[in-house]
């Protein structure tokens, strides 16, 4: 039975990986936000299972903070934001989607390779998911740089933070609480600032297409 619970961690991590890929290929912003909520739920699930197995209570608190922040608060903020900004659809991504998928596979292979020697050294019960967490980080990073709309970039950034949180849980059974609180605070403030920003970008350019933001170049 214990191993079944341990397999739950693997399952949550795999769900996170699928959701990250789904986010890569999604065009509709609303679906992106829903997928991001699912992403957060997977992280919360994995952390709770680790907390249950290792009896570390501070992980319950971390999972709780992530739940409130990444699954409830931030998606609500994002929904309000896209309602006010009237953003529904995305334009095409900067690279077409099948190519993105193939590059994504390469990144996953790279991440797994990188994480394998490290994961063996970890003492955490979730150590095998370090590769998946690193792969999610790299995929979210790719999502940020290949997206044309500002909201999608923001979601990519948040997904990266989620994946880093999973990495922390899988590498070390969680960072100290103060650090995690600080990180959570930073993320929240960051989102608020980004929200403010998007309004200003909207005001200036009448659109949230970041290709308007490519004028400052070295000539």
């Amino acid at each position, binding site marked *: 039975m214990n191993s079944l619970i341990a397999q739950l961690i693997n399952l949550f991590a795999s769900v996170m990986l699928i959701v990250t890929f789904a986010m890569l290929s999604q065009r509709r912003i609303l679906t992106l936000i829903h997928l991001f909520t699912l992403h957060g739920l997977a992280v919360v699930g994995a952390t709770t299972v680790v907390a249950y197995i290792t009896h570390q209570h501070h992980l319950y608190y971390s999972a709780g903070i992530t739940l409130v922040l990444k699954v409830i608060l931030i998606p609500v903020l994002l929904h309000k934001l896209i309602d006010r900004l009237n953003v529904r659809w995305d334009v095409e991504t900067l690279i077409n989607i099948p190519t993105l998928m193939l590059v994504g596979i390469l990144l996953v292979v790279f991440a797994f390779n990188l994480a394998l020697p490290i994961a063996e050294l970890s003492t955490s019960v979730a150590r095998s998911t370090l590769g998946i967490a690193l792969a999610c980080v790299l995929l979210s990073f790719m999502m940020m740089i290949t997206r044309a709309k500002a909201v999608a970039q923001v979601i990519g*950034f948040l997904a990266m933070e989620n994946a880093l949180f999973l990495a922390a849980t899988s590498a070390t059974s969680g960072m100290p609480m103060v650090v995690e609180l600080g*990180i959570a605070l930073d993320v929240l*403030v960051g989102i608020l600032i980004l929200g403010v920003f998007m309004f200003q*970008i909207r005001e200036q350019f009448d659109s949230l297409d970041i290709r308007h933001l490519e004028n400052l170049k*070295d000539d």
Partner: protein
Amino acid sequence: MELLFLLLSIPLVGGLVLAVIGHHGYAREVNVGFSLATFLAAAALTARIMSGGPITVADGQFFIDPLNIFLVTLTALVGCTTSIFSRPYMRVELDHGKMTPMRMRLYHSMYQFFNGTMLIALTTNNLGILWVAMEAATLTTVLLVSVYRTPASLEAAWKYFILCGVGIAQALFGTILLYMAADKVLGGGMGALLWTNLEAVKEQLNPTIMSLAFVFLFIGYGTKVGLVPLHNWLPDAHAEGPTPISAVLSGLLLNVALYAVLRCKVLADGALQNHFASHLMIGFGLLSVVSAAFFLSRQQDVKRMFAYSSIEHMGLMTFAFGLGGPVANFAGLLHMTVHSLIKSAIFFAVGHAAQKAGSQLMEDIRGLLKVNPTVGWGLMLGSLAILGMPPFGAFASEFLILTTAMRELPWATPLLLLALGVAFASIFARVQPMVFGATELKPLAHPPSPLPVFIHLGLGLMLGLYIPPYLDTWYRQAAAMIGG
């Protein structure tokens, strides 16, 4: 220890106060007041350290040692002089309509918060809190860069946020890996992230984990230092933000980021016992110096040009710390101090010059010596100083770095000399017509304050001729600690 808490809380309280009253006319003076108070607290702390030696505070959560004491004082000093500079500068911006009182409120409070987060980053012993403070500093400066609300400044701030956000996330992953390595040796909990504890056991940290951790930490914090190829945010942020922000970005934030890299390098060197970290730093430092010099030569905007100069100098410092050894480390630390002082002085002069001309393009700025000697002489002397002209301090540090490079890494020396030469030619050629010549520029309604520029240049000059004994001791001790 109360002095340290006083030092850290003054800017934070100042930020809160200015968030309420920042749109009034007297807010600028209040800003100067808070910065001055911070500087006095820093001076008192320095005096305490001079007599007492390194200290740890609050159960080891904060500490002051030779590496960060001079940076703390430098940060407080530059913060203070920049606030003095920002007084007349912002009055002119307000008159020209580029700022509104509401945005002045944001500007002033974020300025104080920025100072506060940088001081926290410098004095914290906890590497996790260091990360949080760096991220917070990034967030405050993002708001500051976009404060003019022009399309270009929004673009610069967005790029800054995204690039530095990604970089900082890599640094977070590096911190996680570091915690993982520390967890094995020190056990979990808050103690495992304290730098002093880690430094004591650095040989026992697992090499595989530490090498990967250092790579991520270097990429992450290196983005904030402005190393090529992750430097794209730097020229835009400097050019589009208000000049006081360019001054503190160049003068202070880059230094704090490099300081973070150094702290991690010490741990990595101890764990890896090879020159992996040094090679990384040498490689990227050299790349930054050479690329920045060539980018520099093609710039039309004066603030972008000096931004690339900052990238070049940070690359030089990274290269110096990569070389290691007592001489190169000493030179790197000296250069950190001198560059910070002189670059901010240059930005003070450039800010006023751009205000007079109404444009940041160098071809529009002419004859500064005639219109306002402060600005003209400040720019002239500042440029000469940053280009490494003796007797200013940059000459001493660059000389030491070059001679060490010639001894240890002969193949790098021609590249360095080439880059420094290209930068010299470009900057000098651009600054000369700006300073001399006939002009139709009018003086500004609110005359610039000569104090900041000349204090900085004076200190830069002094450091070139004479390094005070306690500073010398701190440099040597820090150099020994950085090792390599």
